[in-house]
């Protein structure tokens, strides 16, 4: 699992895997219900979740347990229910604070340049196609250069800067 420990992301990955590989699509509540849960979970990992979403997920999974034809569908719904009750805090963190402590949910992550590591070489600014990085290149013997930093509103988390930074100064928070 590539989710690196974020319970919301793990749940989403599990459900996506279920819809892609296990679900047969022959009984409607399971097929449509899990797909709608994927929608809701995606919303949450993008930081667009709302407080009622947790209730909605709970409702859908309970209904699937009641109505689905086979055990596979019911089990998938039980997995979601368990995740909701066990990791309540993480869901709330994603929804209320738009933050993923495990740094898995890329859409609510921020790229940040650690000024302590940055050598102000300017390579990141060159590769950024969104003009999201501002700062001045370090010129020897001059000291009034502005330090580099990433404007989170413009940043698309594309990762290009991450790849070029030789001192690993760009971090995900």
């Amino acid at each position, binding site marked *: 699992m590539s989710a690196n420990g974020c319970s919301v992301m793990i749940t989403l990955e599990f459900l996506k895997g279920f*819809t892609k590989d296990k679900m047969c699509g022959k009984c409607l509540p399971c097929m449509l219900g899990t797909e709608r849960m994927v929608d809701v979970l995606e919303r949450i990992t993008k930081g667009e979740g709302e407080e009622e979403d947790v209730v909605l997920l709970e*409702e859908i999974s309970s209904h699937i347990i009641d109505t689905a034809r086979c055990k596979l569908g019911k089990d998938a719904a039980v997995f979601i229910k368990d995740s909701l009750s066990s990791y309540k805090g993480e869901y709330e963190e994603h929804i209320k604070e738009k933050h993923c402590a495990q740094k898995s949910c890329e859409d609510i992550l921020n790229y940040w340049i650690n000024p302590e590591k940055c050598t102000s070489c300017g390579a990141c600014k060159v590769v950024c196609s969104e003009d999201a990085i501002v700062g001045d290149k370090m010129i020897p013997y001059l000291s009034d250069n502005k330090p580099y930093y990433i404007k989170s509103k413009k940043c698309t988390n594309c990762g290009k800067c991450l790849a070029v930074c030789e001192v690993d100064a760009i971090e995900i928070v």
Partner: protein
Amino acid sequence: MSDQVTVTINGKEIKVPEGTLIIQAAKMAGIDIPHLCYCECLPSTGSCRVCLVEVEGGKGLVASCAQKVKNGMVVDTDTEKVREARRFVLELILSNHPGDCMSCDKNGACDLQKYAYELGIEKTSFSMKDPGYDVDRSNPFIERNYNLCILCGRCVRICKQQGADIIDFVKRGMVTKVATPMDRPLQESGCDFCGSCLAVCPVGALVEVDRRFCGREWEMKETKTVCSYCGCGCELVFSTVDGQIMRATGEVSCDYICSKGRFGWDFVESSERITKPLIKKDGVLTESTYEEAIKVVAERLIDIKKKHGANSIGGFMGAGNTNEVAYLFQKFLRAGIGTNNIDSSARFLGFPALIDLYEALRDGAVVSMKDVEEADVLLLVNADLTASYPRVGASVKKAILNGAKVVVIDSKKTEISELADLHIEPQVDSEEFVLSGILKELLEENLHDEKFTKKCKNFDEFKKSLDGLKVETIEKETKTSKDFLKEAAKLYGEGKKTIILFGAETVSSQSMGLIADIALLTGRTKASVLPCLLSSNLRGTIYMGALAGFYPGARRANEIGNDFKKIWERDLPDEMGLSAMEMVENMGSSVLGMYIVGADPVAQFPNSSKVAKAFSSLDFLVVQDVFLTETAKMADVVLPGATLAESNGTVVNLEYQTKEVKAALEPLAKPDWETIADLSERMDYTMEYSSEKEIAKEIKSLVPIPKKIEKNTYDFIVVKPKKSGEEPDGKYPYALIVGETSFGFYDGQRTRNSKLSILELNKGNYAGFNPEDAESLSLKEGDAVLISSRRGKITTSVKMLGSLPKGLLFMPSCHEERGVLASDNVDSKLKSPQHRLIAVSVSKGGASK
């Protein structure tokens, strides 16, 4: 009777047979459980989860369409828990159903809409998703919008059960979709366009193209009538809005209706219809008034009768009119004009199968579709069921699904032969030998009913004649090993409920006799032989006496005595009357005036160039028809006819059932019976009927259907097998057979004027070749080819037909020039053309049409 169990549904206690599904039991108790994937006539899949109910003591909710009742079961179909679950499922479905009820044609008839309304769902609480599929509008019959599909799978199941089995669920999960193999359009997937899928679709995913945006469900007026195509006589319900047909369906949504029934009605609305009487003036047919036309016809017929006698006039009609029209037409000719020269298409469509077979087998020749579906062994002789009589084909398919064994005797492959347990492919035209061989094997294997045959007087004579036929002769003539015949005899002889089906117009009267013998030899005299009929009222036409030599009630002209003289209050002619081919033979000499109703002899009769010449030598020709046929073009007066969709009356189908025809539309001119009655009135033979109901009353007092036969012994029909076709020779090396196709019908008059014609290559104007024959002639699909017989030649296009054996060519009966090649050699006893096979030669080239 199976055991009864008691169940309580919503507090109501009822007794139902063991094995009943909960949903069915509820229905018996008058409780309708909402359902989407369940359909009464189809196996349950339990996939939609809308029919969930609570069973006391059970764990969770139960799908009522998949669970059978148990004694003492207590079921609740409408608790809060059930409603909650149903609402959830429906909201989910709605979230994946981006349809707009506003412009959906199913609005008002949609199950999803109905249940959503009942549960008070205004809008789905889930996010909406649009699957984004392209709507398939590539054919003019069925519009497929899978964005609205709720994956209930009813169409998949019914296509398997009674269609061509060409759709299934493809892919999986959220991208599951109903599709044809490789997702090709229907017309490229072998769809037979029976439209069964349309009839069971609970939502707007499958809709008739004809009705799109043409009328709302609640504006439709429904008229239950009978299909005007083949002899199956299926009941059709026409839905009309403002005098226009929107669609045709069966009475129950699962009823099988073939492509012609469901989509072929549009010829009724063709712009080619004759709407006004036409009178030939200076060689040109000119519009005139009804009164004038009737006046001219009456005057001319009176004139001919005065000068040359009543027998110089003849009448001919098709076999697709109502009983009332057929009865009145022959009454007009016999009593009104005073001639027995009255014949009909029944002459060409196998009338012995309707008269002689019944006299030989009585109850044995009365077979219903239900009998076919319940049979365990079916023997098919020269019957391409799914093309010629699709309803029978559907019933046979159902029987096969129920486990019936099928033996097919046919030189070419058919849809059913591919499903059969045994397909005997004899040398063309050797069926009589095959059937004789089966009779011999039945005797040899001791599979005959000795107790029964002892009671038959001529059994010994029959057996002697069979013994005289050598097995070697049979093998030589049929080019079939006797092992196959033995296997067929065993399958048939050991069956419990067996039915022999044959095409009345494709089987010789000798073969028909042998078929009756097979049934008699095994003592099967109840529902054992079904002659399949091509025309919608073949039985009725004969029973009404529209056949030379027969009076109403299928009574032979020499046996009627004075009965009809009294009823019709006229002296009746002594002569037996001329048959159709005899009339043609005598045209210009002793036959000078002809009255044709609903038939096109010039195109239909064999050796058509000779027939056309004969008709042109008439003094006077009047044609009453719906289209300007080849015959009508030669007429002096043309009277507009009515289609069955515009007529009231009755017809008799191949099951011997008299069915009521009701007009869904107003006739463009007058009902056919009224035109005949008006003409009769003008010729001083008064026919006072206020409606067709009064004619029906008169018929009922005269004609029992089927007729009564006071006899309780049976006689074998002794037959010496022979080949009756034109043998191919050096000059004409190929044999050609004319037959029905899936989307053409009979003379093609109707299907040519219907959208159905686009489904046939070149509107059915082609000749089918075995691919090997085509290769040896270096012919490719679509090539122009010149086909000649001893009568004439035609140019047509080539179609590859892998179903044909080498040396046999096939021509659709709806081919416009089918009559040119056929032989007019007449069987002396039956007075109908003798040869089913035509010897032809083939050469490449000629201007393709």
